[in-house]
Each structure stands twice: as structure tokens, then as C-alpha cells.
């Protein structure tokens, strides 16, 4: 009797690539459904929108996913010139819906649909196909698409409402927790940072403004545990990433006398948990070796804290993941070396620990020393009846001439500003300056203009600082 021969182990483990992707999608479903509830059903119940608006979050996610799938199919057909069976095989094995799905989960909900489509197209073509297709890309494709959209159309999205849905606009305020925190001088305290949005429990359960994917922290933690139990995720990366951020913000907070709420707030706000569990562990763009993953996660944590506190963007997760994606090849080389002595592990870990402590101390120091005065405010000229001042806004310093009489501000004339047209239009349209002058004695209570938060806050702070100076 003749038998067929073939090589290799004659038993195979049950896990395959398509099962891994299935588990990933199953883990994402509760998060999408929660966002449907928070941004659709709740609005419908309060009669703030119609049926289309109720289903809008689901439509949003569907459009993003479908666009990336169609783009990759068209690209494979036209550019790579694959037909029939080849084409079907390519599509089955390439999971093109995933970058689009993540793009729609990371972009703000009020992104206009054409811009979302552009984001998904860029994510697939620039982030994935140009590098050679599935398995060959260096950067996380969803983050490339998001970065493109946020850089090009940031002002358009913000003027459309940004991260906030109509219900939140009424009850909560006008900025996401991280943007709000970013504009506070110094380190802030619980009342200013967390209280406007509820308490920390609300952060855990997700009733705060944010993108589709990132708000409900508890569902993300459940998804992480599910993926670890099914053994389809690189579990070391989210654990070490989030712990690093926690430890660093704990050091920063305790240097400034803040309690445990400060590191908890830093973890639960923004896209940190979502980015750590779903974006940083993208199998193609993260290291394969154990030591490589550990160093990757540590550096991600350090970079996130650095970016959040030292740059003008309130979110640090997107750029830190893209930065560390560049170093994956190096980290793999480091991790694949034969460990001849314990020193080969201790030296990189020692450097990382020093960096961690160094950055935390640096950031903590910055906050200790910046308590009293506002570093973004400068007095250029001071005369008896006017001040010429400048305050850093969204695109640079805003120069203004403020006329005073009898210790009261009478007129504000903006000399120079570098704000983006669309933002600035919102401020001038709503006669914000007149509101500031009218309420100059309780400036703290004046609301900022939604959609142009940073510019309007700059103007408000300018008046507050001038008043402070007048009182001296």
C-alpha cells in the first residue's frame, strides 16, 4: 500500500490566524456596543436626535471598516494585478478590515464621514499596502491614518463638535478630560481635573467624553483578560505600559502633594488603556522577543508621560506608539542575543529604570516650579491706560492691547494672532471678547467657546493675568 509523504510535525495546534482575528473582533464588540449606547441610545432617549443619529455610532464604525476593505480589494486588483482565485486568497488572508475598524474607534465621533473615509484609505494604502501588504508594515496602519486626519483636519473636526456628543455638551462641559487637564496651570487638583466630569467611577464606566473606543475602561480590562485567557495577545506589553505610566504619575503626583487619584486619573483618561491593549499589541508592529517586548512597553510608558506633559498635544499615546514602532527591529536584535550572563538583561533594564525615574522627577519638578505664575503669559508693554500682552494660544502667542481705566478693562484689541482661521472665527462670532469684558470680575466662571477651547481659554487667561497684575 502506498502512502503520501509530507514533512514536519504530524500534529498541529488548533490555533490559526483567523481564530486570532476572530477573538480580537469578539473582544471589541462590547466596546462598540457600549459606545452605541452612550452616543446613540442615550441621546435618543433625551430626544436630542432622531433614529439616524441613534444608529450613527454603528454607521460610523461600519463605514470605516467597509472603506478599508474595499480600498484593499481595489488596490490588489488594480495595482498588484491579482485576479480571481489569487484575489480571493489574498483578501481572505489579509484581514483588511482591521485597520479601518481601529481608525473608526480612535477618531472622534464627530468626524465628518468623508474625512473618516480619507483616513481609512490613507491607513490602508500608506500604512499597509505600500510597505508590502499584510505582515510587512513597520508602523501601525490605523495610527498612520489617524495621524494624517488629525494633522490635516483637526480644526474641521473640532468645529464639528470634536469628541463630544450633544448630551455631554449639555451636562458636562466642552472639552475632554485630558484637554481640560492640559489647560490647567500646574498640576491641578481633584476639583478642577476630575470633578467637572463626575468622579473616578464615571471614568471607569465610561460616561465621559471621548472617542468611540476609549471611554469604557472596564470593558477594555475585561477584553484584555479575555484575550490573555485565549492566548492571542502579547500580554506583557499592556501590563508593563500601564504600570509604567501609573508609577511615573504616582511619583509626579506625590512630588506635588497629590493623592492616588492623580495616577488613576492618568490611566483612565484618554486613549491609554485602549491604545495599550489594542494598538500597542498589534502583532505585526511589535517586537517578537521577550526582552524586546519588555523594553518596548517601558519606553512607551516613558514617552507617553513625556509627550503628555511637555508637548502641546494633550494625547501622548498615538505618537509614542508610532515612535516606538521605528525601534522594533533594534529591540528584536537585542532580545534575540544569547543571554550569556545576567548583565545582558540588567544593563538595558538599569538604563530604562534610570530614564523612568529621571523623566518622572523632571516632570514633577516642572509642576512644582510653575505653580505661581503662568509661563504662557508675557507683559510686553505696560502704561497707565493700556497693557500690551501676549498669551500662548493654540497656534502661538496672541498679542493684544488691553485698555484699562480705573482698574477695569474697557477694551480689548487683538493685534496679532496665529490661530487657525476656523477656530478663531468661532471666538469672534460669539462675541466672546464682549462677554469677557462684561464678566471681568468673575472670569473663572466664564465658559469657554466649545470647538475653540484652547483659543478662548487663552483669551480668558489673558484677562485673568492682567487683572492679577493690576491688583498688585
Amino acid at each position, binding site marked *: 500500500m502506498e502512502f503520501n509523504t509530507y514533512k514536519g510535525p504530524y500534529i498541529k495546534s488548533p490555533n490559526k490566524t483567523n481564530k486570532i482575528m476572530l477573538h480580537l473582533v469578539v473582544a471589541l464588540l462590547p466596546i462598540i456596543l457600549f459606545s452605541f449606547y452612550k452616543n446613540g441610545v442615550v441621546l435618543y432617549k433625551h430626544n436630542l436626535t432622531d433614529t439616524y443619529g441613534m444608529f450613527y455610532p454603528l454607521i460610523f464604525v461600519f463605514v470605516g471598516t467597509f472603506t478599508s476593505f474595499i480600498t484593499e480589494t481595489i488596490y490588489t486588483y488594480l495595482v498588484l494585478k491579482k485576479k480571481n482565485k489569487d484575489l480571493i486568497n489574498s483578501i481572505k488572508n489579509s484581514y483588511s478590515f482591521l485597520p479601518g475598524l481601529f481608525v473608526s474607534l480612535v477618531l472622534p465621533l464627530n468626524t*465628518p464621514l*468623508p*474625512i473618516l473615509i480619507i483616513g481609512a484609505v490613507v491607513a490602508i494604502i500608506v500604512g499597509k499596502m505600500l510597505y508590502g501588504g499584510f505582515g510587512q508594515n513597520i508602523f501601525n496602519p490605523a495610527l498612520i491614518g489617524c495621524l494624517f486626519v488629525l*494633522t490635516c483636519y483637526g480644526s*474641521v473636526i473640532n468645529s464639528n463638535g470634536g469628541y463630544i456628543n450633544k448630551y455631554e455638551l449639555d451636562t458636562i462641559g466642552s472639552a475632554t478630560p485630558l484637554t481640560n487637564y492640559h489647560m490647567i496651570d500646574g498640576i491641578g487638583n481633584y476639583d478642577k481635573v476630575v470633578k467637572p466630569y463626575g468622579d473616578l467611577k464615571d471614568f471607569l464606566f465610561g460616561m465621559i467624553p471621548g472617542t468611540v473606543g476609549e471611554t469604557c475602561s472596564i470593558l477594555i480590562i475585561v477584553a484584555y483578560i479575555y484575550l490573555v485567557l485565549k492566548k492571542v495577545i502579547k500580554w506583557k506589553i499592556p501590563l508593563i505600559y500601564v504600570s509604567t505610566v501609573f508609577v511615573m504619575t504616582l511619583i509626579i503626583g506625590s512630588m506635588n502633594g497629590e493623592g492616588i487619584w492623580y495616577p488613576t486619573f492618568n490611566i483612565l483618561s484618554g486613549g491609554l488603556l485602549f491604545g495599550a491593549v489594542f494598538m500597542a499589541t498589534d502583532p505585526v508592529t511589535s517586537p517578537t522577543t521577550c526582552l524586546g517586548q519588555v523594553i518596548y512597553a517601558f519606553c512607551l510608558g516613558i514617552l507617553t508621560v513625556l509627550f503628555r506633559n511637555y508637548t502641546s498635544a494633550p494625547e501622548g499615546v498615538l505618537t509614542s506608539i508610532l515612535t516606538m514602532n521605528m525601534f522594533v527591529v533594534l529591540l528584536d536584535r537585542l532580545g534575540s542575543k544569547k543571554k550569556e550572563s545576567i548583565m545582558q538583561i540588567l544593563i538595558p533594564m538599569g538604563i530604562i529604570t534610570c530614564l523612568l525615574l529621571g523623566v518622572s522627577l523632571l516632570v514633577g519638578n516642572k509642576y512644582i516650579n510653575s505653580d505661581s505664575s503662568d509661563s504662557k503669559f508675557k507683559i510686553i508693554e505696560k502704561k497707565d491706560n493700556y497693557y500690551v500682552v501676549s498669551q500662548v494660544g493654540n497656534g502661538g502667542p496672541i498679542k493684544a492691547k488691553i485698555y484699562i481705566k480705573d482698574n477695569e478693562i474697557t477694551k480689548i484689541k487683538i493685534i496679532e494672532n496665529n490661530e487657525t482661521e476656523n477656530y478663531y472665527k468661532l471666538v469672534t462670532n460669539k462675541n466672546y471678547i464682549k462677554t469677557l469684558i462684561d464678566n471681568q470680575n468673575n472670569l473663572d466662571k466664564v465658559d469657554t467657546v466649545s470647538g475653540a477651547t484652547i483659543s478662548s481659554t487663552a483669551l480668558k487667561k489673558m484677562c485673568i493675568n492682567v487683572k492679577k497684575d493690576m491688583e498688585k
Partner: protein
Amino acid sequence: MKRIINGIVNENPVLVLLLGLCSALAITNNFENSYIMGICVTIVLICSNLIVSLISKYVTKNVEIPVYILIISTLVTVLEILLKEYVNPLYKVLGIYLPLIVVNCIVLGRALSVASKENVKNSVLDGLGVGLGYTVVLMVLGLIREVLGNETITIMKEISNITHHEIILKINFHSDLFPINIFNKPAGAFITLACLLALFNYIRGGNKNESN
């Protein structure tokens, strides 16, 4: 005539020889800057090729690079002085990229590889062709970047001092999607140049056996 076409298509300095990229990326913020820069580089190229081809017989091999650079820097300095005197706003806009023409690889490269070996007529025509090629590419880059990033086409703004006319065309796309801010920034320059490079080489056929 063939030489001029050669300089624009087959040996286009930016898209084929990949020389002079830093000025191509930095100066193409708007249309006007780019064609002014192109004209400046063309003038310098023609003059330097002329002079180099005249004296190349008398220059020995080991001093040719310093000698040519000396010639080019003299020409650029003269151009700088002329611009500063008569078109001051333009001089300010071009900024550091005007003295950088001295080390622009196109000028020195063409001087070493063509002007020192050919006769005067060929060198001048080659300089004209390469300069035109550079100008055309810069104009296309500047046009794309300005239209997509700013919704305008500036034809005469800074040089309006001498021409006494200001022509700025406005294009309104009537859509939320435009202007795309990234094209005003350096990242947009890289993206546009990359797409243009890919397209140009695809159209040319990307012949693998073609020698440089």
C-alpha cells in the same frame, strides 16, 4: 534642442538624478517662491556652465573642485547682491536658500560632469535644460502644495515691488475637506515629492537597463 529636452526629461535633476532636493522641499510653500528659485538656479547654472567650459582646459584635475566652487559662489554672491538691491522682499523670502545654491548639488554636479568636458555651446544648452527641468518640477510642486494647502495660487506678490501688480488667484473648493493643512508643512512636501517621483518614473517606463 535635444539637450534641453534631455535636461527636462531624461536627466531631470530632481526627479531622476535626485539632486537639489532640500531646496525643492523647502522653498515650494507657494507658487511664486518656487518659480523665482527656479529662475535663480537656471541663471546660475547657465553662467557657471559657460565660465567652467571656457576655463576647463586650464584647470588641473586636483584643483578643479575648489576652483569651480569659487566660480559658483562668486556668481551666487553677485545674484544675491542684485536681488537684495532691487527686489528686497524676495531676497528676504528666499532667505538662506539663496546662498545654498552654492552647494546645490545640481550646479556643482553639472559643472564637473558636463561643463568641464563639453564645448561652450553644449554646456550652455545643458545648463539651460537642467535649469528648466528644475524650474518645471519646482513649479509643479509649488502649485500642488499651494492649491491643496492654501486654496490660492500666488503668481506675483513679493515681486510686486518691481512689477507693480499683485496677482493672487483664489480657488474655492466649497468643501470641508480643503484646505488640507499638511501640505503647508514639511511633511506635505515630502509626500508630494514622493508621489511625483513615483508617477514620473512610472510614466517614463522605469527601464531597468537604462544607464544613468
